[in-house]
């Protein structure tokens, strides 16, 4: 995502569609992960949410990236039903708000996308009070956003930077396995939460991987 690479509303729509596809394909795995340390609904929660998002965007595609991300966030908040709904919803809404604050343009630069993701991460942290190491989606999202920022600062190509972010998210998700949950439903399990990948971190890895997939097209 070096200079010259601009992302329009269609790019964001494609990212969300790819995320929806990936969540649908990973639904069972996400639910299995949640069965181990939660209530076995993360896959169906997110799938329900992204299905509703895709439907909402089909009815009337918003005409700026900021508006699109806001619709995504609002729909996820309303439709997911689990803790991940308010969290992902806030992430996407904060991204939309950040882009809106930057001028609500029809095209977004890689640096602007990175700033928006940083705002999304901040929103998740604020809402859920989770720090890295607490075994939540923050453990995938925070390193991903950091990797993206670093790659851009080092002058990487957009698809390279997206690849780095996706890889960091996947590694972050895997790194939740030995952690003990300190936030959300899983935190009630104490020691018993150790030894399982956090479902929200796993779905964050899917969403960041979807970003790379679309950036690489």
């Amino acid at each position, binding site marked *: 995502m070096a200079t010259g690479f601009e992302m329009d509303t269609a790019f964001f729509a494609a990212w969300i569609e790819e995320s929806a596809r990936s969540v649908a394909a990973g639904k069972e795995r996400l639910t299995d992960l949640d069965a181990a340390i939660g*209530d076995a*609904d993360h896959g169906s*929660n997110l799938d329900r949410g992204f299905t509703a998002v895709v439907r909402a965007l089909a009815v009337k595609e918003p005409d700026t990236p900021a508006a699109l991300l806001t619709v995504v966030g609002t729909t996820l*908040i*309303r439709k997911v*039903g*689990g*803790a*991940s*709904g*308010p*969290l992902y919803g*806030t992430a996407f809404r904060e991204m939309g708000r950040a882009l809106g604050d930057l001028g609500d343009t029809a095209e977004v630069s890689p640096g602007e996308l990175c700033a928006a993701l940083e705002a999304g991460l901040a929103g998740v942290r604020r*809402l*859920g009070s989770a720090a890295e190491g607490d075994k939540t989606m923050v453990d995938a999202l925070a390193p991903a956003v950091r990797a993206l920022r670093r790659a851009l600062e080092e002058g990487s190509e957009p698809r390279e930077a997206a690849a780095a972010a996706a890889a960091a998210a996947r590694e972050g998700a895997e790194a939740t396995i030995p952690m003990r949950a300190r936030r*959300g*439903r899983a935190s*009630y399990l104490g020691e018993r939460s150790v030894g399982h990948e956090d479902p929200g971190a796993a779905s964050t890895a899917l969403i960041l991987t979807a970003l790379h997939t679309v950036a690489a097209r």
Partner: protein
Amino acid sequence: MVGIVLISHSGPLAAEVALLAAQLGGAGVPLAAAGGAEDGGLGTSPDLVAAAIEEVDRGDGVILIPDLGSSVLTARLFEEERVVIADVPFVEGAIAAAVSAGADSPLEAVLAAAEEARTFRKL
């Protein structure tokens, strides 16, 4: 009067605790249950929570009492100056809040009463 909204992943759980709290707080307390997903299944629905807040809001503030997990996060979406979350035991906090609200206490007092439920002994 201060309004009270009980938020749970489970519809019946929120409804039963609301019944209990209403019984002890008196019929006049504005109290609503927002439990379960929109379709009645397990989950939390911000739309149900929003409707419940509107239902119990008499202008004196609203206390949101979540059980755990998504209830807490959904509650946080609605926090404002006069809509506050009580981080209290779900059943005992709801009862204490309802009794205090029923005595027409102000928001801060209802919140404090709910928090005292933590230390109330049953034996």
